[in-house]
């Protein structure tokens, strides 16, 4: 069992923490030191995390490679596999295959602004990139984050947002505020309209795909090039290596060519936008 897809890493839960009522952050360590040393990834890449008996789910690593041999993922309890992941406690065993997919950060964005736009739990796949910038500020010129959720309760990584605002410009917005909410109210796209963005910025967007076309339009109006606007797509996935066919979008595979795609690449794709 050595080739890419069947190379299985055995892992163990270190810590579980709640992110919002439906989402948990799981921290893992490798069961064997040797496997821990062999594993590498780039911020933005995903793994196929599995619990024996319940199957696998495609999840982006939310920590940076510097934190290896430990890493975290954020899991929303939706299906069979993710519900099983929610039942895991410290010391429980799991496994994963990967890492798969591409990443924005693999091309350094020297001098340019990196604008991250997240909706709901779409912040999770971007957290690794945020922490990579936190650890090495030279990889971007400037970092900005616009993050929105339906309610303040649904925001994830709430405890970290304050620390992030020390090295990044953070704009928070919710559709429906509660009494304590002091941030913006409205959609992510509304907040984006009011935000100043450099013309040569690179934007990475992750959230419900329904918001993607509107965001692309706003960013293009702000002068961003189509190849500098990137969207993360989510599809049903089984193999991670371009075989099982579940994640195809026209000519593209989300597992091989994605999960991050430039607007230039997918704007004319007949099934990239749901």
């Amino acid at each position, binding site marked *: 069992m050595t080739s890419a897809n069947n190379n299985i890493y055995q892992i163990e839960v270190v810590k579980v923490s709640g992110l919002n009522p439906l989402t948990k952050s799981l921290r893992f360590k490798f069961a064997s030191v040797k496997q821990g040393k062999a594993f590498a990834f780039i911020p933005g890449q995903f793994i196929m995390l599995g619990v024996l008996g319940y199957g696998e789910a495609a999840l982006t690593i939310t920590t940076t490679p510097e934190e290896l041999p430990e890493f975290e993922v954020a899991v929303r309890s939706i299906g069979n596999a993710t519900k099983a992941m929610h039942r895991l406690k410290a010391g429980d065993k799991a496994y994963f295959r990967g890492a798969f997919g591409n990443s924005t950060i693999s091309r350094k964005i020297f001098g340019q602004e990196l604008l991250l736009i997240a909706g709901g739990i779409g912040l999770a796949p971007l957290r690794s990139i945020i922490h990579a910038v936190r650890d090495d500020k030279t990889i971007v010129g400037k970092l900005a984050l616009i993050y929105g959720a339906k309610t303040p309760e649904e925001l994830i990584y709430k405890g970290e947002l304050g620390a992030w605002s020390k090295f990044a410009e953070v704009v928070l917005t919710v559709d429906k505020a509660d009494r304590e909410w002091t941030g913006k109210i409205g959609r992510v796209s509304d907040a984006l309209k009011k935000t100043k963005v450099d013309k040569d910025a690179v934007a990475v967007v992750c959230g419900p795909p329904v918001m993607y076309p509107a965001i692309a339009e706003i960013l293009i109006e702000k002068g961003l090039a189509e190849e500098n606007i990137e969207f993360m797509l989510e599809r049903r996935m089984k193999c991670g290596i371009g075989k*099982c066919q579940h994640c195809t979008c026209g*000519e593209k595979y989300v597992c091989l060519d994605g999960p991050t795609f430039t607007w230039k690449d997918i704007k004319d794709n007949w099934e990239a936008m*749901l």
Partner: protein
Amino acid sequence: MSLSIHTKDLKRFLGEIIDGWPTYGPTEDKTAVNSRYKFAKLDKAKDYVLRYGPTVIPPKKYLFPAREDVFRFEKGEILPPTNREFIVFGVNKRDGEGLFCLDQIYAKPTPDSHYTERRANMHLVIVDSLPPSNNIDCDLYLQIADKDHLEAYTYSEFGEKLVRGNKLFGHQAEVGTISLRHMPDDVLYHPRLASIIEKSRNHSVWDKLTETCFACGVCSYVCPLCYCYEENDKVKITADVAGDMAGSRERRWDSCMLPDFAAVSFDNARSKVKDRIYNWYFHKFVRMPREFGFPGCVDCGRCIAFCPAKINYRDVLKELIADDKRK
């Protein structure tokens, strides 16, 4: 001068193979409903048929079975499957081409180790009246030269071993010339087929197909080049469920025609039958030629023969090509 075998000795040769390895090949069952031919385990050489019509399931099932365990697990341990050597005998050239394409698919861009390990254990003997060509990968090719002889071409050490020194094979004088079935396929290999289909998303043919297609997925199951799959964990129900669960990761054939194929938690990328039909054609005639250099079709006719709605993919392609010409 190459080696050849008498047609009447073929079953004796097959008998030798059956004695040495688990052997699979085309058999005949005259009472069967959908097709009287099928690939099955050959226990005796007499079960084998030299010429077969389309079997419902192509020989891909020996490399990519309808259901198989990718691994088993017990007490938290992952146990890889064990593979053993076997022979597939008597596959015709077209089915051989299908297997060759499947080899390319599972090797590119990242090899699927589960497939490649099984493939390494499979030996293939092709029997056909057409001469061999470079779009097949077998150990031994037996070309039906005339009614009395089959000419042997070996392509591996294993194939060489089967034939060299075997008394059933001898040097024959000139065999009769073979008339080649030459079929210029201006549909499947139409030079602009990919771009025609790519631009046809709003063509009425897809609406028409939606009215007849049951979206049952049979065309995928019977296709030698359909290779998509689903994977799920299968758990054994035992008294000790709470502690150490035992079971396996099962890989099974899927079909892009089925409703949930592209469903995710928040949406379904292809909830409409029309989109699923279009994707089937797009995959076979646009994505696959661009990804692998060949279309997802060897023109074996199985999807036409076994479609309950009597849909003929060639008619669909012909209509699209004809409409493109008219423009």
